[in-house]
């Protein structure tokens, strides 16, 4: 078990290092110097070469590529990704300020999405009537195929401008969280619901369900005490993908609802070509991904007792 965990940890570190290297190559070795981007396009031709050199030295862009790479890697290990070219703030600080907002939004959306997906799967399995069941089963594919930017706009239009229940610009507090969390949750819940729906149906037709019924359990009890856990275990493996969807969705949601957070920061940094910030965000996403997958990998044998005994292959 320990060797297994260490192996997974080693792989996770390699992935993070790979993400750093790739982002360095893509971002810092672009033909345009990041310094030039500080100036409006029409002034770029008239930059004082002397001042340009000094700024390059200040940011460390004048040294050989490999030296820059090692320097930044070493600094990155300490959590230092340089300073934002746009605002002059350290990258780590900018991310640190934006992160809590996004974590709250993503967590709220994840809870909403999971609850929704679970209820869809549960109800669709519980119902005896075939056409009602089919009706509910057709909801998740609909959600998957709905673009989230359109959904966000529709939600604002209805609940802020027409009904006036929630503010269109997401401020602090719970009231401001409701609309963006819902807008983010709906597209994320689609794939989870599809997965759970299928798992519920396969698990519900397994033989142990007959055994539970023969004990005298009611249908709801059978679903809650027997089927639920078996059906939701495979959804854990989707953890990494779901985190990716949440972060990608946050970019759009936070922009639409003008909510401060990693998504907004990303959008602004990319628009301004603020290279250090973009790299900082890339690293954050990579670390999130890898951490979630690592936790899933390591905890899976704990939640599914069968995995502790790994069977051998067919031929020795």
């Amino acid at each position, binding site marked *: *078990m320990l060797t297994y965990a260490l192996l997974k940890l080693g792989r996770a570190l390699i992935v993070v290092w790979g993400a750093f290297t790739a982002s360095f190559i893509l971002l810092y070795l672009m033909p345009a110097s990041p310094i030039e981007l500080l100036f409006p396009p029409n002034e770029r031709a008239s930059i004082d070469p002397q001042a340009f050199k000094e700024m390059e030295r200040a940011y460390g862009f004048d040294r050989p590529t490999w030296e820059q790479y090692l320097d930044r890697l070493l600094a990155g290990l300490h959590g230092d990704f340089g300073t934002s070219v746009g605002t002059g703030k350290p990258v780590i600080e900018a991310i640190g300020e934006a992160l809590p907002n996004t974590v709250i939004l993503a967590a709220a959306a994840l809870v909403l999405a999971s609850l929704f997906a679970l209820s869809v799967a549960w109800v669709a399995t519980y119902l*005896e009537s075939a056409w009602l069941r089919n009706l509910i089963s057709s909801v998740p594919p609909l959600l998957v195929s709905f673009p989230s930017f359109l959904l966000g706009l529709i939600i604002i239009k209805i609940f802020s401008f027409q009904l006036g229940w929630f503010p269109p610009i997401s401020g602090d507090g719970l009231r401001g969280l409701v609309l963006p969390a819902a807008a983010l949750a709906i597209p994320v819940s689609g794939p989870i619901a599809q997965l759970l729906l299928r798992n519920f149906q396969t698990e519900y037709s*397994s*033989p*142990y369900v*007959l*055994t*539970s*019924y*023969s*004990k*005298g*359990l*009611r*249908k709801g009890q*059978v679903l809650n*005490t*027997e089927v639920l*856990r*078996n059906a939701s*275990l495979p959804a854990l493996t989707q953890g990494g993908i779901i985190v990716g969807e949440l972060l990608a969705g946050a970019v759009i949601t936070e922009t639409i609802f003008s909510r401060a957070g990693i998504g907004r920061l990303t959008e602004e940094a990319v628009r301004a070509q603020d290279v250090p910030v973009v790299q900082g965000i890339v690293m954050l996403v990579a670390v999130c991904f890898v951490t979630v997958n690592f936790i899933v990998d390591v905890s899976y044998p704990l*939640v*599914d*007792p*069968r995995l*502790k*005994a790994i069977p051998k292959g067919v*031929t*020795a």
Partner: protein
Amino acid sequence: MSLLSFTDVNIWYTRRGEQPSQAVAGVSLAVEPGELVTIVGESGSGKSTLIRSAIGLLPVNSRIGGEIRLDNASVAGWSHNRFARYRGTYVGFIPQDPGVALNPVKPIGRQLEDALRNRLRGGRLLPFGNGAHRQHIRREAFRFLELAGLPAPEAIYAKYPHELSGGMKQRVLIAIALSGEPKLLIADEPTSALDVTVQKQILDHLDVLREELGIGILLVTHDLGVALDRADRIVVMRHGRVVEEGTSSEILHGARDGYTRRLLEAAPGLHTGRLTPRSIDLSSLKLARVAAGEHERGTSEHAIEVTDVSKTFTTRRGGVEHSVKAADEVSFKVKSGATHALVGESGAGKSTIARIVAGLTAADSGEVRLLGQAERWSRKRLSRSLQFVYQNPYSSLDPRFSVADLVTEPIRVHRGDIGRRDRHEIALELLDGVQLPHKYAKHRAGELSGGQAQRVAIARALSLNPEIVILDEAVSALDVSVQAEILQLLADLQAAYSLTYLFITHDLGVVKLFADAVSVLRAGSVVESGDTASVLGNPQEEYTKLLIDSVPGSHLTV
């Protein structure tokens, strides 16, 4: 008053866009207190459908006609929630395959307590559990595990299903079925997946429960031997209908129905003589070319000689090494053209030895000599002389291949010089050999019945004209009458192609029919070895006697 009665019950399965198919047609049947009734029939006879209707566990696409009475209530077509108060407390159910009938992610104790909690909830005011109540439930759980014949309930309580053997899981299921103190037990092939000795213990135990608790038992089995040994009344079903009904001796001595008589003839436990091969007409010109082109057939006296073969498997769990001796100095010889059976219960090391002989697993020590040659053969050379037929034909045949392609796949791999058209002709010859009509050449494996699929697997094994065929439980998954046909076919093919069989089985009845010599294995070592008649007729070892004694129907004479 009957515990359970069926009156003119019809059950259909509906599928969208298709005609409903009738699984049970006009069955009437009753079970009295303290009575053991068995329903005997082959797969597809509707026996499982019938008994599941009595506990409301049919799939949603089923339609029931007629009357099913439990405790004087007409229960046909009830919903799960309406049925819930009868299940467990009035009627207990022991499901078919213990391997999959328990929830894999829940400890045994909790699965049993679910059933108990349901019964013991009555009369309590608080909806949540308290300490004393939990203690009470746990004590009850221990009591029922013991009642089901599990000696150390404390140890089993916290275990997960995958940590128990098949027999133990079946006992847990019996404990669950008994925990509601039902008046009627319905058991769907409760012992079919188990070893004979375990089967005997569990059936004995059910007998004891019937006598002590006076419950009625409705037992479904495909094994006529089991039914004849145990039942007060036997009901024979075929194609959804009852074809015959009577006591054991009535069925055994005075079976009126032709199908019942055929079942009696096919039951291997009731036979004594060996099968005699019938000659089959083989105009196998093409097939002969396959053989002639490559290697000469061996002429040594012994086709397989296994000398002092040992194999130990080690696994690490939680930092502790466990080692299992799968083979411990195993030796036996198989004469060319003869059938040698390896018999033993699961875990005896039969399959390990077969895999070592086939070169799929390397032995730790010892020697395997094939066709008198001592040197190790390459994979390619091995597969020309030695082929396998496995237990489950569906999982060993690629469902996307046509039968013709399946049968000639070994030729395609080994003999690039044989063209597509010749291969097709060879496929048809092989189908002739295994007595499958040519029209099946275009079918896919999924469209065949179990017996047909096993014929295809046998044809595939024969396509390279091997000297040795290893039959790994090759007939164990088949219905008795199909089993009898396949065994006859194997005997015919052995004579026609001069094959040597290494026959692995847990079923001593089949050994008697089919094998010239037998080695009885237990925990990796050979207990007793010799020719079939002397080992089975006059066993020297206790273990062999126990095995022979456990074969259902072995005490009966036709």
